[in-house]
């Protein structure tokens, strides 16, 4: 926005425009033979740092006619010239230039220009050079590094990278192995197509390169290395060949109903009454959590990573130790299926078909509150530690004060069951997806009855997933479309088509990438800024015949897809894709 014109014209008007017609000959001796540096340029060498070799090459003070070829006519002219005042000299220049040959003018320009260009990184003290570079983005710094050896050195001063405002690049977890266990076999197997997977023959090289996790640049300039790694990871998602994949098999013939990731742990819950805990990096199963006497339909992993929680049709909530797999608590109280849950610290909120929500402390195994008010099953819940937001089959969204156990708002407007919720605590914003096909955006700090900020209409079926960043909401729907909305005015910015069947879940990665899973048996990657399909990540051969992808979970470097079918055309499993990169 503030960019200064990069052209290097001389602005003082004494240069003639390109279309000036060449005038009558005035013989200016053409002495600017650029090849000859032999005119004793030692006289022009100055200790001033501003004199780069360029200065030596094109020194105005060195006489081009030294030696035996003195041209008396030129000498005479120069003598006369020296006698003029500065203003008169300027006049003379102007007149001379207007009668000069175009090629002479160009050569003159080449001589004069360098004097107005200054290599700031070499001329100024290092601290000031750094100060200038700190104003640049990572992509510009990368260009700076390619200009010259000196500039490259400057660009690698790590402090500059530390100050970069684009900080997301610092957030990636440590580079991983993902070469053993299920990763060794990859997911390239009959029935599964991963279009951009590197071929088997290239796998060894990829795995070898992963071994050096901290490369040469990391040693010289760690933050620059982090930046480069983040760029590589983004390209890995967007267009590079996929370098690693794995299949985690389990819950045969049953449905994977819920999936969670916490650091290196992946937890899957199923209607086979169990949960399985997997180690992502080693591609292996850690525990099988059995004990429920009914299907598991919801699960959570505590933010501290110590507890795995599960809710079941057996009406109980079980708390498991994530490290040992031991059952720690069984929380009783609900009188029907526990269908949804949300956690904050040690506090757990569960929602049930029995129309109530309950608040528990999982560390102590104690029941704290029961939230009553819904007239039908509670289907979805969100919690920020103070406020509980719940959605139910009674078409309403309720906002509760967790400490007092009281309902502070009932948000009405939907014409059918509410199936999904999104809660942004900072702005007190709630987004609800309903069987009435709409998404409603609420701000519950507004006066009662006026909480609905926007009504997002356009989908023609039930919304299965939503994610919000700033004022942009991305939703996926059983109508097979992804929609990108601005929640302030309800405008639909993009409609992304491509899936052939209901979309089951979505994950928003990076700044502009979204992955979706569908009943059509594919996982697709979209660019929601440009509004296009980027590529298919996974395709099941049984897609369209029963094979479907139920759910996606991701980290910044890995995608997990829960896969199966309801008619035994596809064995139940989790497919993992690796998008990691090392520190260069």
């Amino acid at each position, binding site marked *: 926005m503030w960019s200064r014109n990069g052209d290097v014209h001389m602005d003082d008007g004494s240069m003639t425009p390109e279309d000036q017609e060449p005038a009558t000959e005035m013989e200016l001796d053409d002495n600017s033979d650029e090849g000859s540096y032999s005119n004793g340029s030692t006289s022009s060498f100055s200790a001033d740092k501003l004199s780069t*070799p360029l200065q030596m090459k094109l020194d105005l003070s060195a006489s081009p006619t030294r030696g035996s070829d003195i041209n008396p006519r030129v000498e005479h002219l120069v003598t006369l010239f020296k006698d003029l005042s500065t203003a008169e000299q300027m006049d003379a220049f102007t007149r001379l230039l207007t009668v000069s040959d175009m090629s002479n003018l160009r050569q003159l320009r080449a001589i004069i220009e360098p004097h107005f260009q200054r*290599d*700031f990184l070499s001329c*100024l003290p290092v601290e000031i050079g750094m100060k200038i570079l*700190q104003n640049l983005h990572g992509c510009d710094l990368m260009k700076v590094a390619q200009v010259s050896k000196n500039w490259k050195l400057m660009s690698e001063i790590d402090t500059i990278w530390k100050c970069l405002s684009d900080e997301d690049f610092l957030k990636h977890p440590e580079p991983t192995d993902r070469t053993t266990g299920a990763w060794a076999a990859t997911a390239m197997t009959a029935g599964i197509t991963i279009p951009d997977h590197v071929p088997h023959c290239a796998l060894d090289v990829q795995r070898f390169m992963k071994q050096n996790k901290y490369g040469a640049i990391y040693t010289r300039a760690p933050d620059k290395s982090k930046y480069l790694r983040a760029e590589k990871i983004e390209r890995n998602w967007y267009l590079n060949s996929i370098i690693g994949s794995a299949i985690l098999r389990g819950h045969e013939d049953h449905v994977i109903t819920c999936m969670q990731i916490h650091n290196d742990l992946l937890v899957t819950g199923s209607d086979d009454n169990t949960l399985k805990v997997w180690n992502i990096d080693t591609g292996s199963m850690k525990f099988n959590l059995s004990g429920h006497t009914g299907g598991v339909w919801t699960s959570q992993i505590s933010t501290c990573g110590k507890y795995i929680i599960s809710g079941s049709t057996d009406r109980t909530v079980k708390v498991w130790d994530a490290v040992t797999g031991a059952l720690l608590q069984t929380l009783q109280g609900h009188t029907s299926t526990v269908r949804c849950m949300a956690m904050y610290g040690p506090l757990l909120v569960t929602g049930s078909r029995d129309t109530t929500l309950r608040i528990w402390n999982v560390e102590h195994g104690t029941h704290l509150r029961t939230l009553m008010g819904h007239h039908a099953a509670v289907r979805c819940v969100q919690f920020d530690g103070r406020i509980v937001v719940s959605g139910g089959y009674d078409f309403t969204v309720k906002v509760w004060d967790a400490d007092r156990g009281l309902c502070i708002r009932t948000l009405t407007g939907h014409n059918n069951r509410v199936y999904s919720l999104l809660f942004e605590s900072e702005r007190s914003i709630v987004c609800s997806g309903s069987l009435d096909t709409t998404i409603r955006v609420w701000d519950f700090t507004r006066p009662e009855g006026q909480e609905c900020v926007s009504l997002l209409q356009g989908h023609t079926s039930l919304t299965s997933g939503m994610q919000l960043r700033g004022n942009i909401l991305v939703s996926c729907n059983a109508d097979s479309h992804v929609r990108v909305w601005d929640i302030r005015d309800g405008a639909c910015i993009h409609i992304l088509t491509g899936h052939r069947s209901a979309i089951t879940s979505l994950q928003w990665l990076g700044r502009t990438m979204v992955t979706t899973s569908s009943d059509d048996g594919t996982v697709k990657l979209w660019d929601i800024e440009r509004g296009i399909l980027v590529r298919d990540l996974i395709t099941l051969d049984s897609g369209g015949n029963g094979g479907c992808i139920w759910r996606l979970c991701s980290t910044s470097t890995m995608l997990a897809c829960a896969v199966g079918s309801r008619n035994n055309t596809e064995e139940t499993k989790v497919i993992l894709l690796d998008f990691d990169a090392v520190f260069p």
Partner: protein
Amino acid sequence: MVYTLISSDGEEFRADGHSIKQSKVLGLAAKNLESADTPIQVEKVKGDTMRRVLEWCENHRDDGPYVSKCGPALRLPHWDFRWLKDLDNQQLFDLITATNDLQMRQLMDYSCKTVANMAKGKNPEQLRQIFGIMSDEEEAELALHEPGPSNATH
């Protein structure tokens, strides 16, 4: 209070205390003068640059306190943006060096940002052109052909 400032090349300037307080160095020098008439010698700054510095100070004399920033958070005011845009590279660099010597945080931030903006969105070849830098290949070429002390032609 009006002070006299003398640049490194002997040019004299008059500026009042309110203006020159933008520079920590000048402000301090003014405080330590024996008498208000004693001129302040500004040894490191040439006349042209001094003139510009004072012009900027005059324009900013009524500014409130300044919090140093850099990067996208730093936005140049309209006047400064235009004023700095008009300088050629040499003048800009002299100005930056002066702000360093005179400890003028705000003008230094603005000037550095101006230089950075020249580099934004440019590829390496364009950067070389704007800043008059030889690529490493060209420099190596030049080194090959340069007359060293051992092969002077006269």
